[in-house]
């Protein structure tokens, strides 16, 4: 029993493990997208760009100000989140009453601008971000050598995802938020500042993307294009999970990362498209997504 479908088990387990690492990033990014869409109705195409800015904030912090990784985990989402809030106040706010398409176009344009500016400043090549000393080294899992940092990514992102889910689905604050999106006028009548909540929600969603960016910096090279290559997959993940479903985003993010890993064993050439094939099937069979409400 050392093989499944003719593939050695260690190979499958190894790829599934790496898939779980990628899935962690998908989950965190799609979670932010789902929060923003579910509560604001905005299709935030700039999400990948904020993820990229998060990684760059960490890199610039390290190289220019000597801010270490652990502080960057807090500071970078904070800085990028505030930047997101400023954009929400200045630009996005005016589009809430219009068709969601306008928000999509605006955020897409913003993403292109951010990418262009960063490319101009840093070039399109990637720059390395060192793994923090405390997370150097690796575990021997028997079937593979797993660098400690990657294990940390999985643990950190699942924790963040669960906390976010808990806040929105199980706390009073979350209940108010959901009520505010359901019927803003009524909630406002209870004396709750709805525009403030919306603004902070957007900021929190962006901060999640930036946090994913910091986490990914030591795994992949920090480059201006790191977001755009990921955001398309993440959108597919959100569609599969069900637009706006928090739990759907988390579960399908992790699951699709592993499906990708498994595809790399069986037919590597298909690993880049398997997510989109699944998206097409889900859209045909369950247009609202696996966890969406019809």
């Amino acid at each position: 029993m050392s093989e499944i479908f003719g593939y050695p088990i260690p190979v499958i387990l190894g790829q599934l493990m790496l898939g779980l690492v990628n899935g962690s990033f998908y989950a965190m990014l799609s979670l932010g997208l789902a929060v923003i869409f579910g509560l604001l109705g905005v299709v935030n195409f700039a999400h990948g760009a904020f993820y990229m800015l998060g990684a760059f904030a960490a890199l610039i912090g390290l190289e220019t100000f000597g801010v270490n990784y652990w502080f960057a985990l807090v500071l970078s989402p904070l800085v990028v989140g505030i930047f997101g809030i400023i954009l929400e106040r200045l630009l996005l706010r005016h589009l809430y009453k219009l068709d969601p398409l306008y928000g999509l176009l605006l955020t897409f344009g913003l993403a292109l601008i951010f990418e262009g500016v960063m490319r101009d400043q840093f070039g399109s090549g990637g720059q390395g971000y060192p793994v923090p000393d405390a997370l150097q080294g690796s575990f021997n899992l028997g079937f593979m050598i797993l660098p400690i940092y990657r294990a940390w990514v999985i643990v950190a992102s699942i924790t963040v995802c669960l906390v976010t889910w808990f806040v929105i689905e199980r706390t009073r604050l979350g209940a108010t938020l959901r009520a505010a999106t359901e019927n803003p006028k009524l909630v406002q009548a209870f004396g709750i500042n709805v525009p403030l909540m919306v603004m902070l929600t957007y900021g929190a969603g962006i901060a999640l993307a930036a946090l994913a960016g910091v986490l990914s910096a030591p795994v992949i090279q920090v480059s201006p294009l790191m977001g755009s290559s990921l955001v398309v997959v993440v959108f597919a993940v959100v569609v599969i999970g069900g637009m706006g479903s928090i739990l759907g985003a988390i579960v399908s993010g992790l699951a699709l990362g592993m499906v990708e890993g498994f595809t790399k064993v069986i037919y590597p050439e298909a690993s880049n498209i398997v997510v989109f094939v699944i998206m097409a099937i889900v859209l045909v069979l369950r247009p609202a997504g696996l966890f969406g409400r019809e």
Partner: protein
Amino acid sequence: MRYFSRSALALALSAAFAAPAAMAAANEVVIGDIDDMSGVYADVIGQGGVEAAKMAIADFGGTVLGKKIVFLSADHQNKPDLGASKFREWADQNGVNLVLGGSNTGVSIAMSKVATQKKVPLIAIGAAGASLTNEDCSPYMVHYAYDTTSLANGTASAIVKEGGKSWYFLTADYAFGTQLREAAASVVTKNGGKSLGEVRVPLGTTDFSSFLLQAQASKAQVLGLANAGQDFTNSLKAAQEFGITKQMKPAALLAFISDIHSLGLKTAEGLVLTTGWYWDLNADTRAWSKRYFAITKKEATMNQAAYYSATLAYLNAVKAVGSTDADKVMAQLKKAKINDMFVKGGYIRADGVMIHPMYVMQVKSQAESKYPWDYYKLIKTMAGEEAFGPITGKCSIAKK
């Protein structure tokens, strides 16, 4: 009347715009450099190549045939269409006389078509693909520093002879990677080893982990890295991180001193690689490198040194024939011997390959390295004819 004056204005305007190009042809000799200035190969040549070419122009005196030598530089971003259109633009608007081709075989193949069409000599330096002097050859192209054939003849044969018989390749998925893998696999087979397969990786991939696990599953003895620049350093680092280098011996099919410098000797120690030039080879290379280092604060890669040598070779040819006429200069280039700090007695063959010795090197350990940038020890010097092999007959202008 009004129509007439408007068209007269248009005529005047177009004359005004056309003038600089015409003037360039009359008073200047224009050398252009089209290279990856910001991507995965930027450290291999990039700005260092610009400085090396400028050194050659300065050493030549800044003028040739009484005309000022002008140097242009552009970033092709590893996009063949961008490289070719820049070349065309310079040929049409700036009267470019010579183009130095930087990294990326795909881009150089696209630019060679423009060289033929516009009759402007192209010296491909950073591109490795041997197809440039075979299927994709051009009467106006020279391949200067090294190619996939000579790299495979150096590194792959050295490793097979050491006992690394079974190979699995990690291949950069475009013209360069596939040509390098094919050349290496054929050298491996010829020497009694075998190739167990390959995984193709897109150019500029940042996370090599899953590709490396595929390679590991092959159980081959040797991990052939058919990639270059940052792709090479990233894949080697990841191979160590995932403990793969403990089971498989990595073979650097193309590594530059810039890569070794960024990896550090602790990581790169023991790697066998093939190079066309090394800064610490002899008194000439050391003297030149001292000047280059003063400008760039780095030692030059073989390609950056070749930028210097190629620029000088072209200017010498122009001086010898007393003209920038492409046909005359190309004929002279293929006739003259090249003697400078890059090569002694080098010559350009009918198919465009510059024949010169190639050096098989091994990266020193930290203990062996005595001074900054003391990275390589020489294992073997291959004569040019041995390294580059005979003319294959695949290039239409060079008979077997």
